[in-house]
């Protein structure tokens, strides 16, 4: 996983509540057995006017001019700004894979769905929860200012606006550490292999019905 430390990036607004993972990456693309290549199909049903198929070259497909991420001013965006309950629904990790492949490295929202939130950290994406009033203010600034960028500073746990205002955010110490170092958490867990083995052996004795062969 790539490290996440500090990012200054163009912001794209997606002004909706409850953006679900089916919308982020529709089901037909889940048939892939790879982790990469989902970017061209991120938000497929909103982004294109036709129905997308897996493996298709997306460049000649008709784009929906009304979809915000298709606007020229948001091309190259690395920060996605959205509302409540982003990433709800299916646990598909294809959703953060698609967002990352599209170019997003940080997502700012009023709230996230639990599984999606967790999946982001496994892929080097930083999901940031800010209060509704601050999200509101960001939407107003983004829409009023072409080329609007934000600086996301993970060590300082703050998002900096161009006008100098710093908005602090919370992140778990363990998740922060993993992002800052780009750690693979399987390796971290396996440092406790002896403890896992001991726990398992005790369990096998105390609750043998859990160990049907």
């Amino acid at each position, binding site marked *: 996983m790539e490290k996440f430390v500090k990012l200054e990036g163009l912001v794209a607004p997606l*002004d*909706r*509540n*409850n953006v*679900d993972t*089916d*919308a982020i990456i*529709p*089901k*037909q693309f*889940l*048939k*892939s*057995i*790879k*982790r990469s290549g989902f970017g061209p199909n991120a938000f497929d*049903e909103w982004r294109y006017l036709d*129905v997308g198929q*897996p*493996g298709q070259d997306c460049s000649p497909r008709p784009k929906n001019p009304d979809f915000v991420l298709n606007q020229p001013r948001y091309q190259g965006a690395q920060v996605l700004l959205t*509302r*409540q*309950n982003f990433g*709800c*629904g*299916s*646990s*598909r*990790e294809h959703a953060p894979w698609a967002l990352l492949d599209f170019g997003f490295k940080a997502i700012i929202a009023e*709230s*996230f*769905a*639990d*599984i999606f939130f*967790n*999946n982001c950290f*496994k*892929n080097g994406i930083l999901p940031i929860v800010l209060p509704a009033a601050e999200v509101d203010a960001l939407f107003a600034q983004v829409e009023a200012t072409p080329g609007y960028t934000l600086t996301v500073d993970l060590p300082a746990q703050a998002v900096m606006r161009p006008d100098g205002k710093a908005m602090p955010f919370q992140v*778990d*110490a*363990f998740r922060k550490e993993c992002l800052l170092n780009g750690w*693979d*958490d*399987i390796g*971290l*867990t*396996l440092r*406790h292999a002896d*403890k*896992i083995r001991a*726990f*398992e052996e005790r*369990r096998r004795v105390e*609750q*043998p*019905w*859990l*160990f*049907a*062969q």
Partner: protein
Amino acid sequence: MAQTLYDKLWQNHVVHQEDDGTALIYIDRHLVHEVTSPQAFEGLKLAGRKPWRISSIVATADHNTPTDHWDKAEGTAAIDDPISRQQVETLDANIRAVGALAYFPFKDARQGIVHVVGPENGATLPGMTVVCGDSHTSTHGAFACMAHGIGTSEVEHVLATQCLVQKKSKSMLIRVDGELGRGVTAKDVALAIIGRIGTAGGTGYAIEFAGSAIRGLSMEGRMTLCNMAIEAGARMGFVAVDDTTIDYLRGRPFSPTGEIWDKAVAYWRTLTSDEGAQFDRVVELSAADIAPQVTWGTSPEMVVPVTATVPDPAKETDPVKREGMERALQYMGLVPNTPISEIAIDKVFIGSCTNSRIEDLRAAAAVLKGRRVAASVKLALAVPGSGLVKRQAEEEGLDRIFVAAGFEWREPGCSMCLAMNADRLEPGERCASTSNRNFEGRQGPGGRTHLVSPQMAAAAAIAGHFADVREAL
């Protein structure tokens, strides 16, 4: 101190805990299906790691598998879509290489939707941690399990370490007391709860469902309810152990027997919240107030009783919500203030991990018996949740009732719940569906989904529009 069921389940699985509360949680059961596992198996192989405990794995193919014409070719050759076939064959190859406690491949007599297959084989037992790369893993909470969906990175993490890195959630008690009215089911309870607390109401919480109406539900009903916990934003929902739980488990293939059964039952009986246990949030509903529910929009929280009308965005004061309602109504092709019972449907889907168990099929068949699907309905599908459910339904003659009414009686799988196989809606088509998500495009690009109970889906099939099943019973 009095403990909640969640406290007990959590405590029983902590292998190691950091100062900030981050814990290593041991995983007892790992359910695997073809869509969210290939990258995990590949990651494991690339890192040169071996699976930690093969006997924790129960696998089946369900999302991509076709529900008709299984006999047209040998094995996976009956899957027309080459990339669907490749995904199913990749699971076959991975399980062949790695092993499992049980594998129910495509066409196996016990193949089916992973959340139907686990419990019916006794592979889901009380007090377990159950995970799967599928958000509806919350279903298994019906057995007082800590059960939740995970992403593919965590699938790989569980394969490699038998653990997950987690922080304890907050606890919520949802109490439903009283008796459910005739024609009102666990599905209606689930939708009414989501209507009350919203699709983000349970975010950050583990929900315990309790109260006399919940105690009165069968295991099938409890599975339907816990299945929908994720639609309320909660990764997991559970119900305490009682006689209903234990009676269901007795004699299942992977249930313990003899002395070990007795020992297990004694432990399982402790899996309840103690008297006086404290929850971070309590929500109470009266069973008698719950009517059959129908969703009208593109989020499960957009739900009303069948007797109501389509809501009017003009009455919503929050501008973001109002815009969301307007967008949903436009997508759904609905006009505010239309009575729900006047909304005509094109297709009917009875199936999914929410509502494809024997009790669901019996309930729908009871409504359909001696009646015919309306001529205006283009397709009505009945898709049993597993090969075992299908066989039992056929032994009871339910298949003949479905077919006589004009339904197609299919092979088991996820089918039109998410339309990864050929079963789907065409753009603009409207469906009465017993599944769990009415998101845009969920049942096919441009498709319009209304979530209902199996009885309500059957009543809509007969009428050609939504109808109050209480009048048909």
